[in-house]
């Protein structure tokens, strides 16, 4: 009962935040990799609450178009995402699943996520795994909500390029 009230309290607080129009956007670079056999990477992006461990999936890019969902066979190569969320989810995830992307800079609109995200301490995770290639996991810690506009960034070394997380009050 107490738990339920806390949860309701959190929802209430989250709604207050959304009324204050918090905003969130992500920009992510997939580097051009010069190899004989290139496959677009599988990429997963998620938020994890430091206290509760709760995971909010932002996007999962994988091979959607293969017959018999064969593309799902490689989802587990995004090891941490698979462990934290993927293995307990039923694919495809509505509004989260997407096709693999070309090298270049991609932006991910997170306005909806910002609307419903409870205040707290979080980490943004971005994990990429490429067929016959490597795997890379990056994270950006942040507090939500923010009082002024902030851009946080990190940069990968192999499978991921620059990642920018824009947070606005």
């Amino acid at each position, binding site marked *: 009962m107490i738990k339920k009230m806390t949860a309701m309290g959190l929802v209430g607080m989250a709604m207050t935040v959304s009324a204050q129009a918090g905003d969130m956007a992500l920009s992510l670079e997939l580097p051009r990799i010069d190899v004989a056999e290139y496959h677009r990477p599988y990429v997963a992006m998620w938020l994890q609450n430091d206290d509760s461990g709760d995971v909010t999936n932002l996007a999962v890019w994988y091979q959607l178009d293969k017959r018999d969902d064969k593309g*799902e*066979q*490689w989802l*587990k190569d995004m*090891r941490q995402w698979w462990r934290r969320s993927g*293995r307990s989810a039923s694919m495809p995830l509505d509004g989260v699943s997407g096709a693999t992307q070309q090298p270049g800079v991609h932006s991910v609109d997170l306005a909806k996520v910002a609307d419903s995200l409870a205040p707290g301490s979080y980490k943004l995770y971005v994990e990429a795994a490429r067929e016959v290639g490597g795997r890379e996991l990056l994270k950006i810690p942040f507090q939500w909500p923010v009082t002024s506009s902030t851009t946080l960034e990190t940069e990968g070394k192999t499978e991921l390029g620059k990642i920018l997380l824009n947070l606005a009050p």
Partner: protein
Amino acid sequence: MKKSKLAIIALLACSLPLVANAHRAWVLPAATVLSGENAWVTFDAAVSNDIFFTDHAAMRLNGMKAVGPDGNEVELQNQHTGKYRSSFDLELSKEGTYKVFSASSGLRARWETEDGKRGFWPGRGETPAPGEFKKAVPKNAKNLQVSQSSRRMETFVTAGQPSKTVFALQNQGLEMEPITHPNDLFSGEKAQFRFMIDGKPAVGVDVTVIPDGGRYRNSPNEIKATSDKKGVVSIEWPSAGRYWLEAEYQDDKAAKPATTRQGSYSATLEVLPQ
């Protein structure tokens, strides 16, 4: 003739892990964490000196079984036994954790006869019924030692969300009850396993964990641990890879006619990178 020969080889292979510093028996899955519908995993099974290098003998598959997340037995498909290894495939048609294992237990006796000759029971390759003990051991045997021994070898694979049904204990011999799920092991993290002997916590179990790839190192890099008073062992994984865990236990709390109780357990585990 052929059948009994096979049985002898199987028993020899099975009993080898009980002998210190002997060949090691293992079953190695090609993958332990699977995604997608109807995943397949292929396994190798062998007895070797170097862990996961097939350099000695194939393991016979007649004692090998697999059980699925619903508790039902799953068929080992495409079985093959070659010179140095056996292999088989498992189809993971249901979501959850599967266990591949081989287990046996029984009495063993050693004694000296009145004229000083050594006797032992059961004979090599024999798997007698428990009641035969009285008939086999002479009444006037000297220095009679009877042990109740068990051996168990296991490995685990998971499709999708891990489950725990296959961890149900048989309450017989030395068994491992995972506290940390064996398909949720990551480098730099600690895993805990509880060892049980005949269904009760086994205190002071000697555990040795050997990482894969010994051929390419100058030392085996073994991790040693001993179970605490709750039977629990903690292991911190130094790096990702495949590991072979071996546990040995012995005490004198055996049921009559046995005077000692010994258990041997081994498992193949995979640790993933962070």
